[in-house]
C-alpha cells in the first residue's frame, strides 16, 4: 500500500561530488517490497519547489525500518534537499511503482548495468539477488572519478567494473565499452540509467531476458495525471501506453518504446 509519511532523516552525507546518501526511518519502509521501486519526496512545505521529486530506493533495511536513497543535487529541488539535516523530517509518498522481478534460480548469473544516478536502485537489487544465490556482475558508468560512489559496496556483492567518460577511473568510455571488452555471459540483464545507455543495451542484447528502469518527468507519481507515459513497442495504432510511475518504472526489455 502506498503511504504518505513524514519520515525522519537518520543520516545524510555527501558520498561523491554532488552525490548524497540519505537514509530515512519510518513505518513506510514496511510497505517496500521490490528493489527498483521509488518514492516521491516533498522537499519543502513551501511552494518552492512545488512538485515532489521521484527518487529510487537504493537500500531497504526492514529491521531498522530504514531505507536509503542516493541522489545527485543538481537542480533547485535536490539542492534544497541536500541542506536537510539528520533529525529533520521529509514528507515521503511511497513506495511507488513496480520494481525489478527477482525470482531467479540459484546459481544463475545476472548482469547489472547502471549509469550515473541510475546506479542506486541496482544496489538493493544486487543484495536481493545475491541473497538468492545468484551470481552478480556490475558494470557501472559514471562521468568522472569524483562522481563514483558505492564501489566497495558493489564489489562486496560481486565482480564490479567501472567506466568513466573521461577515463579517470576504470575503463575510459561507456558501460558498453566495458561490455565489449569483457564478453560476460549471464542469464538476465538488469539496467537503470540514461536513455542512450538503455538503447545501446537493447541493441546489444536483443535476445536476452532483461529489465530496464525508466525515468520520466512526473506530476502525481501514482498514475493519475498521464504525465509519464510511454508508447508500447508493438503498437501500430500508437494509442497504447504504459505509465512509468505506476506500471513501471521497470519494464521488460522490448515492452515499451525507449
Amino acid at each position, binding site marked *: *500500500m*502506498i503511504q*504518505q509519511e513524514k519520515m525522519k532523516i537518520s543520516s545524510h552525507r555527501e558520498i561523491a561530488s554532488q552525490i548524497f546518501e540519505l537514509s530515512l526511518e519510518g513505518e513506510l519502509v514496511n510497505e517496500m517490497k521490490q528493489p527498483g521501486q521509488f518514492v516521491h519526496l*516533498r522537499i519543502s512545505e513551501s*511552494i*518552492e*519547489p*512545488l*512538485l*515532489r521529486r521521484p527518487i529510487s530506493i537504493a537500500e531497504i533495511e526492514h529491521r531498522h525500518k530504514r531505507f536509503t536513497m542516493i541522489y545527485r543535487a543538481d537542480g533547485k*529541488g535536490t539542492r534544497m534537499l541536500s541542506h536537510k539535516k539528520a533529525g529533520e523530517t521529509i514528507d515521503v*509518498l511511497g513506495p511507488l511503482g513496480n520494481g525489478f522481478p527477482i525470482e531467479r534460480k540459484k546459481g544463475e548469473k545476472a548482469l547489472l548495468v547502471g549509469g550515473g544516478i541510475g546506479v542506486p536502485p541496482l544496489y538493493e537489487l544486487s543484495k536481493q539477488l545475491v541473497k538468492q544465490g545468484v551470481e552478480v556482475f556490475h558494470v557501472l558508468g559514471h562521468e568522472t572519478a569524483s562522481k563514483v560512489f558505492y564501489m566497495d559496496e558493489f564489489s562486496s556483492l560481486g565482480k564490479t567494473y567501472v567506466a568513466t567518460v573521461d577515463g579517470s577511473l576504470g575503463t575510459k568510455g561507456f558501460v558498453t565499452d566495458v561490455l565489449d571488452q569483457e564478453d560476460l555471459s549471464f542469464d538476465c540483464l538488469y539496467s537503470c540509467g540514461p536513455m542512450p545507455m538503455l538503447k545501446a543495451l537493447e541493441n546489444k542484447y536483443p535476445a536476452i531476458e532483461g529489465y530496464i528502469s525508466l525515468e*520520466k*518527468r*512526473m*506530476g*502525481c*507519481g*501514482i*498514475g*493519475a*495525471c*498521464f*504525465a*509519464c*507515459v*510511454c*508508447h508500447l513497442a508493438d503498437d501500430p495504432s*500508437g*494509442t497504447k*501506453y504504459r505509465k512509468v510511475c*505506476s506500471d513501471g518504472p521497470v519494464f521488460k526489455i522490448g515492452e515499451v518504446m525507449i
Partner: protein
Amino acid sequence: MSRLNIELPGLSLKNPIMPASGCFGFGKEYSQFYDLSILGSIMIKATTYEARFGNPTPRVAETPAGMLNAIGLQNPGLQSVLENELPWLEQFDVPIIANVAGSQTEDYVEVAKQISKAPNVKALELNISCPNVKTGGIAFGTIPEVAHDLTKQVKQVSEVPVYVKLSPNVANIVDMAKAVEEAGADGLTMINTLLGMNIDIRTGKPILANRTGGLSGPAIKPVAVRMIYEVSQQVSIPIIGMGGIQSVDDMIEFFYAGASAVAIGTANFIDPFICQKLINELPNKLDELGFSHISELVGRSWKNHD
C-alpha cells in the same frame, strides 16, 4: 456536515470541494488514499470521442509556484469511459461531472449526448479551453460567438446540466461568460490553465515536448480570483472556481470572490490527501470566521454587507 452542502444545477453536493479535471484521473488512484464518497463531486479527466494518446513527453515542467502541463487530453475514449471508468465510479456515493472535449463541434456533441446518459454523470463540464490541443480548440475558448454556438449545440443533446469551463487566455472574460450563459449554460467552471512555457538552460530548448503548456498552481490564483470576481457580478449562473487552491484560506478567497464551489487540481499531486483535508478543515474555518453556512461567503467581496 449540513453547513457545507450546496445545491447547484444537477448537483446536490455534500460539500463544495471536488478534484479538478485532469488532476484526478478517473478516481482509481486516489481511492487508495480515502473514500471517494466524501467528495462533493469528481470532475473526471477530459473524455474525447476517440481514444487519444496525447502529446509526446516531457509533458510536465515546474515553474515558480506553478507547473506547466501539456498532456494533450490523453484518455481512453468515450466507449471505454462509459464501459469501464464510469461504472467503476458507481460504487461511490458521489455525483460525477464529466469533462467533455473535442477538436470539432461534432465530437463534443456526440460525447455530450452519450456521456450525459450515464447514471452517475450529473453534469457536464464543457472543456472549451484546453490550451494543449492544436486543432480548432483555441477558437472555442477565445471567441464568444464560437463558444456560444458550441454551448447551444451541446445543450440540445445533453440530458444533464452543462457547465462551461472558461479559458483565462482572453482579454475579456466577462464577454465569454455572458456568451455561454446566453447560449444556455447552467454554470461556469473557471479557470483553466494560462498558456506558458519554460526553457531548459542547458539545451536552450523548451522543456515540454509540446513547447507550450498550461500553467496551473498557486502562481495563477490571483488571476483566477480576479476573473471569478468579475464574472460572478455579471452572470446569474453559478461558478465552480479553481486555480491554485492549496489551503482553506485559498478556498475562502474563491467563495468571497463569487464561486459557489471549488475544485482542486495541482495540489493533489503535492498532497494526495488534500481534498480530504480541506473538507475536514472547512467547518472550523467557518467557525473562526463566524459563518454558519458556506453559502454565506459566496460573493461577499462585492456584495454589500453591514
